[in-house]
C-alpha cells in the first residue's frame, strides 16, 4: 500500500463504513441460512438479492459486470461491519459463486462468459458448486479421471465427482475434467462451466458428520457441453484451477476470519475458568494475527490471487478454527444450550473438522508452504 494517502481517504472510508453500518442495521437478516436443500437455496438467494439491491455485492469486481470497482480496503471495511452486524455466515451456498467462480471468471474467463455469468451471480440469481475432487482424486487432485471427449465444438463428459457442496441446489458447477485422453497428471485438464440441469447429470446428496445433507456425489453420463464453456483455455485447466484454489486459500475468507474474532470475544465474555482463560488469551492474540495476515495479503495482492503465501493463511485459519471450537466445547460442555442450539457451537465444532480437509488438507497446505514458500525440495508423496 502507498505511504502517501489522499488526504480525504480516511474521511471517505469513514463515510463508507457509516453507510455500510447503517444499511446493515436496517437490512441485515439475523438468522442463519437453513443448512441444506431448497430452503437453503431460497434463503441464500433472497439475502444475496437484498445485498445487491443495496449495492453491497461485488465491491471489488469490475463495473462493467455489475461490480463497484472499489479497493480491497473498502471490501475489508464491509466485511468488518458485516461480521459485527450478525448477518448470516458467508460460508453458505453463495460461497463458491462469490469466492471461487466469480473471481476465477474475472481472472481467466472470456468476455462472453463474464457478461453472462457475473451479473447473475451478483444479482443473486444463481448458485454455483465446485466439482474438483473425485473418489480416487482427493489430495492428489491431478490424478482425476472424469473425462471430457472433445467432439467438434462439444465436450462429452463421463465420470464422477464428490464432496461437491450444494450440488443438489446449484445452477452451475466449476468442473475440472481430463479433456486430453493421452495426458497425465496436471496436463490436459480443462476447467468448464457445467449447467447442473444438463441431461446425464445425477446428484446424490451426502450427509456430513455435522448433520446437513449439503455435500454431494455427482455422476456424469455422456453430458454434452459446448467447448465455449471452457474457462482459461482447453487442456489448460490446471492453471485455472490453481487460480480458483488461490482465491479460496486467500481473500475468500475475510468475512469468516473477522467473524472468528467476534466468536472468540463471545467465549471470553462467558468464561470464568482460569485454566480456560489462558487458552482464550492465546486465541484472542491468534485471531488478531489471522486478521493482520489477511489484511496484508488482501492489500498487497489487490484483486489478484494471493499465491502460495495464501496457503499459510489457509493453514492458520483451519487450525485456529478448530482450536476455537474446541475451546467452546470445553467452556460450555456438551449439554449446554450454547452448544445444542441450531447453528450453535456443537455444529461449529463438528463442522470445523472439514476446515483441515476441504480446499486442500492441512498436509497439502504444508507441502505447498514447504516447497513453494520456503523452497524445500519436493519429496515422495
Amino acid at each position, binding site marked *: *500500500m*502507498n*505511504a502517501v*494517502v489522499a488526504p480525504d*481517504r*480516511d474521511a471517505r*472510508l*469513514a463515510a463508507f*463504513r457509516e453507510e455500510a453500518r447503517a444499511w446493515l442495521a436496517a437490512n441485515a437478516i439475523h438468522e442463519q441460512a437453513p443448512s441444506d436443500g431448497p430452503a437453503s437455496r431460497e434463503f441464500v438467494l433472497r439475502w444475496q438479492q437484498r445485498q445487491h439491491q443495496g449495492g453491497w455485492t461485488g465491491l471489488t469486481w469490475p463495473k462493467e459486470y455489475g461490480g463497484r470497482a472499489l479497493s480491497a*480496503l473498502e471490501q475489508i*471495511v464491509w466485511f*468488518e461491519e458485516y461480521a459485527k452486524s450478525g448477518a448470516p455466515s458467508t460460508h453458505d451456498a453463495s460461497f463458491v459463486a462469490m469466492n471461487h467462480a466469480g473471481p476465477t471468471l474475472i481472472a481467466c474467463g472470456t468476455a462472453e462468459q463474464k457478461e453472462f455469468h457475473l451479473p447473475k451471480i451478483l444479482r443473486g440469481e444463481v448458485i454455483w458448486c465446485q466439482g474438483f475432487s473425485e473418489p480416487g482424486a482427493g489430495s492428489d487432485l491431478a490424478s482425476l479421471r472424469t473425462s471430457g471427449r472433445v467432439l467438434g465444438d462439444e465436450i462429452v463428459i463421463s465420470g464422477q465427482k464428490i464432496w461437491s457442496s450444494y450440488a443438489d441446489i446449484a445452477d452451475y458447477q466449476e468442473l475440472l475434467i481430463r479433456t486430453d485422453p493421452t495426458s497425465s497428471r496436471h496436463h490436459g485438464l480443462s476447467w468448464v462451466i457445467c449447467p447442473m440441469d444438463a441431461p446425464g447429470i445425477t446428484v446424490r446428496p451426502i450427509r456430513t458428520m455435522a448433520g446437513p445433507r449439503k455435500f454431494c456425489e455427482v455422476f456424469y453420463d455422456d453430458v454434452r457441453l459446448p467447448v465455449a464453456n471452457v474457462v482459461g483455455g482447453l487442456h489448460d485447466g490446471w492453471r485455472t484451477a490453481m487460480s480458483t484454489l488461490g482465491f479460496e486459500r486467500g481473500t475468500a475468507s475475510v468475512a469468516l476470519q*473477522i467473524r472468528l*474474532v*467476534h466468536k*472468540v*470475544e463471545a467465549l*471470553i*465474555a462467558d468464561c470464568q475458568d482460569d485454566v480456560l*482463560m*489462558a487458552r*482464550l*488469551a*492465546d486465541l*484472542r*492474540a*491468534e*485471531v*488478531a*494475527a*489471522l*486478521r*493482520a*495476515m489477511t*489484511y*496484508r495479503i488482501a*492489500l*498487497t495482492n489487490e484483486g489478484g490471487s494471493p499465491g502460495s*503465501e495464501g496457503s*499459510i493463511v489457509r*493453514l*492458520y485459519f483451519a487450525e485456529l478454527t478448530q482450536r476455537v471450537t474446541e475451546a467452546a466445547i470445553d467452556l460450555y460442555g456438551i449439554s449446554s444450550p450454547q452448544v445444542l442450539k441450531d447453528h450453535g457451537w456443537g455444529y461449529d465444532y463438528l463442522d470445523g473438522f472439514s476446515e483441515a480437509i476441504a480446499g486442500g488438507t492441512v*498436509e497439502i*497446505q*504444508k*507441502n505447498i*508452504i*514447504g*516447497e513453494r*514458500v*520456503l*523452497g*524445500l*525440495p*519436493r*519429496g*515422495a508423496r
Partner: protein
Amino acid sequence: MSVLLPSREQREFVEDLLRPVATLLPVSRLQKDVSSDVASWNSLAELGWLAAAASENVGGVGLSAVECALMSERLGEFLASPTVVATIVAARLLEASQPELSKTLASGEVRAAFGFVGRDELPIAVDPMDAALLVVLGKNEVSIHEVQQYGAPLSEAHTLWSSSLHSCVLAKTVSTTSDPIETANVLVMLAAQSAGIAIASRDTAVEYAKLRQQFGQPIGAFQAVKHQCADMAARALAAFDLVCFASVAVAEARPDASFLSAAALNLAVRSAVLNAGSNIHIHGGMGFSQECSAHHYLKRARVLEALAGGISGVRQRMLAMDPRLAG
C-alpha cells in the same frame, strides 16, 4: 484506517539502515562471549540506531513506531542485546521530561537495560553492561529507574540464558508513563525482537533442512521435517504481520493500539519459543551442542518472555483489553 501496513518505503529504509547488522552483530559472536555487544556499542551509536526513536530536538532521528518496530525485528534476528532496544526506547520515553538524559542515551554515552521483576519481587537486569538506567514493563505502565548497584551475575551466562542476568539495587525512579500509546510502543518493540527470533529460527532451520542429507536426500524433502518448517513459517508470519499491524496502530495513535500490541506480544513471545525449539530439533544432535547457534535463539526467546512479564503476565495483559477494540 486508510493505512494498515508498513509502506514499501518504510521497509526499504529500515533494510538499508540495518544493512550493517550482519557484519556488526553476526550470531556467531555469541559463541565467544554472550554479552559482547558492549564491544560494538560505539558502532551502533555511530550508525544512529540508538537515536532512532528519539525526536530531533534531543539529537534523535525521530523514526516512527513502524520503522522502529521493523528495526527491532531485525535486531531480534541477530540476537542483539535487549539493551540496544532498551536504550532506543528509553531515549524516546525521556525526551520530554529529561531531554539532557535522553540526549546521552541517543548518543550512546549512557545505556539503558531492560529489567523484569523476578520471583522474589526483586528487579533483575538483562545484559546491563553497566547501564545507568533500567526499563521495566509493568502491568499498566513503563518505568525507568536509576540503578545504584549491580549484583554478581545470577548464573554463568554462557550456560543458561545466553544473557547475563544481574540482581540490582535501584535508586530513584526517573520516569513512569502509563500513556497507552507509549506503553503500546514498548510492547511492540519487545514483540518485534521475539518475532525476529521466530523468523531467524525458521530461516536457519529451513537452510539446514536443505543441506543436511539422510537416506540419500535432504531432510527437508521428508514431510515430517517439511511440515515442521511450514508450521514455523506460519508462526513467524503471524507474529511478524501482527507486529507490523500493531506498529501502524501505534504510529497512528489509534485506540486499538493497546489491544493489538498486547496481542502482538502474546503471539511473538510464544512463536519465538516454539520456533526456536523446532530449530534445535531440526538440527538434531548438532542442535543440542553448544557449537551450533540454535540454542541461543531459544535462550533469548525465554529472556524476552520474562521481560514481557512471563507467559502468565502476557496472557493477563491480553485478557485485560477492552473487547470493543478486538476488531
